């Protein structure tokens, strides 16, 4: 209380220094406006033009770029991939992230080193992640195929990369491995914020570990899970690096998602207008997602 009121008085006294605050903050703000607001506007503007990356062509074409996206022969497949990729990646990252967080939420000697080790996948650059999994899951020499054969679980090697049925599963698996530590970090902070007395009280009442988890841990983590799912969904939905380096959207469009289409249109077909239209649609999807997310979230409250 005392700290709070002091803080308030300090803040109000420094009110006359308002311009200093603004000056300190201004460079960062200017950069953000220049590189967020202006680009979004420029992107939407460009999406109405037929613009070439190199040639100086710039004709107004109205909604033609947008119609083109929906008339693409592969539109249904890409949409399906996009949803599979996002939903399964997020669900498995939450499950694995929560499991590991529960495991690491103990007071033991050296636990901070174990925590640092477990989040290593997340700080591993995506390029390195993809390469190491290409090696581990190699069709002929990969350790996973060799081990599965050794234990007699399979007779012929699994084509993790080249089979259309497997490729999406493979990239989702890599994404889960790479991204779950982010969930773990957030959930560890969440677990710390739960009042320990609740668990003691539950023990006195003879609750089972499962009941404790369902009635204390999960409700206590609700907000943390919401934040993690919100951020992750956005980032996975618009992920480019992982799939591009792993499969380039192949084999034959089976891991193709919209962000990769954006890149291909812009930097391989040189059609900036068409690429901008895909981006603009994705931005629209994100805004809709945010609105729906917060509606549902508030409703749940």
């Amino acid at each position, binding site marked *: 209380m005392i700290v709070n009121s002091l803080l308030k008085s300090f803040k109000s006294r420094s009110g006359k220094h308002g311009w200093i605050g603004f000056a300190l903050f201004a460079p*960062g703000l200017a950069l953000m406006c220049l590189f967020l607001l202006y680009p979004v506007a420029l992107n939407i503007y460009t999406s109405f033009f037929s613009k070439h990356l190199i040639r100086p062509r710039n004709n107004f074409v109205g909604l033609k770029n947008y119609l083109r996206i929906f008339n693409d022969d592969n539109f249904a497949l890409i949409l399906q991939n996009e949803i599979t990729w996002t939903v399964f990646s997020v669900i498995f990252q939450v499950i694995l992230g929560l499991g590991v967080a529960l495991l690491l939420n103990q007071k033991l000697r050296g636990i901070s080193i174990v925590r640092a080790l477990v989040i290593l996948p997340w700080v591993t650059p995506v390029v390195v992640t993809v390469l190491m999994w290409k090696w581990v899951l190699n069709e002929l020499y990969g350790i996973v195929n060799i081990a599965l054969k050794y234990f007699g679980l399979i007779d012929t090697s699994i084509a993790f990369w080249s089979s259309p049925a497997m490729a999406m599963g493979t990239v989702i698996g890599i994404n889960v491995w790479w991204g779950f530590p982010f969930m773990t970090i957030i959930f560890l902070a969440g677990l710390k914020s739960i009042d320990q007395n609740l668990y003691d009280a539950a023990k006195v009442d003879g609750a089972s570990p499962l009941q404790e988890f369902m009635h204390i841990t999960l409700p206590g983590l609700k907000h943390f899970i919401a934040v993690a799912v919100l951020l992750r969904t956005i980032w996975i939905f618009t992920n480019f690096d992982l799939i591009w380096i792993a499969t380039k959207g192949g084999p034959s469009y089976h891991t193709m998602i919209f962000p990769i289409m954006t890149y291909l249109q812009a930097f391989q077909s040189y059609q900036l207008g068409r690429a901008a239209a895909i981006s603009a649609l994705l931005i629209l999807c994100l805004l809709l997602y945010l609105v729906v997310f917060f509606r549902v979230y508030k409703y749940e409250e």
Partner: protein
Amino acid sequence: MVLVTLLILFPILWMISSSFKLEKDLFAIPPTLFPNPVSLHGYEMALSRPSFVSAITNSVIVAIGSTVITLFLTLHGAYALARVRFFGRAFFAKFILCFYMFPAILLVIPIYMMMTSMHLTNSLFGIMVIHTILNIPFCLWLLRAFFITIPAELEEAAIMDGASILGAFYRIIIPLSKPGIAAVTLFSFIASWSEFLLAYVLVTSNSKKTLPVVLAEEIIGFEMQWSGLLAMSVIVLIPIFFACLIFSKYLVEGLSSGAVKG
């Protein structure tokens, strides 16, 4: 717990072990757990690529440069957001979060157009600027959360004694914020060191490419032998792992406070 940790880290350990094997031992069935004999052939192959060596230099310059600029801008900005009252402060705080959430791929076309018109493509400085911008939102947010936890009486007292706001900030707040600054430094270094998409799009001349770009091109092009590719990956990982182990205490706590608080 040890078992789970080992299982999670298995691909990394397997890659490191494989990178020290002779090319022919890589394809031995059954494979050996440890390299025997230990061979540096892969590393020799990796370091004899001029494109890879210049990429190491480029990545070091870009990552350190953008980390320094990010630190300078966000330390001041976050202090302003945490302590000094000014017009529109609450709005800006929310705006930062929007920016943090905004994925780079959705901005890649306009940013490419802007950078082209400013003649900042094919330039290390250009990538440095872009990485700085990508890092600012998270670092501002984390440092702001950190500054708010420091009691204001400390600066109160200093200002009573005649220090200016900035003087109080440099002499009192910054020394108290070491864990937060460590977390931010680590975050922006790793983020810049690993960033792929914009470095990939904005640079086409071989002498200006960064490590992730060169490695990705080697993976996609696949001319090099496996031991060379694996050695390259390990080289890219080394600085990150060292940084993480040194700062392991700050990393988890620092990141979680920034990601969750406020």
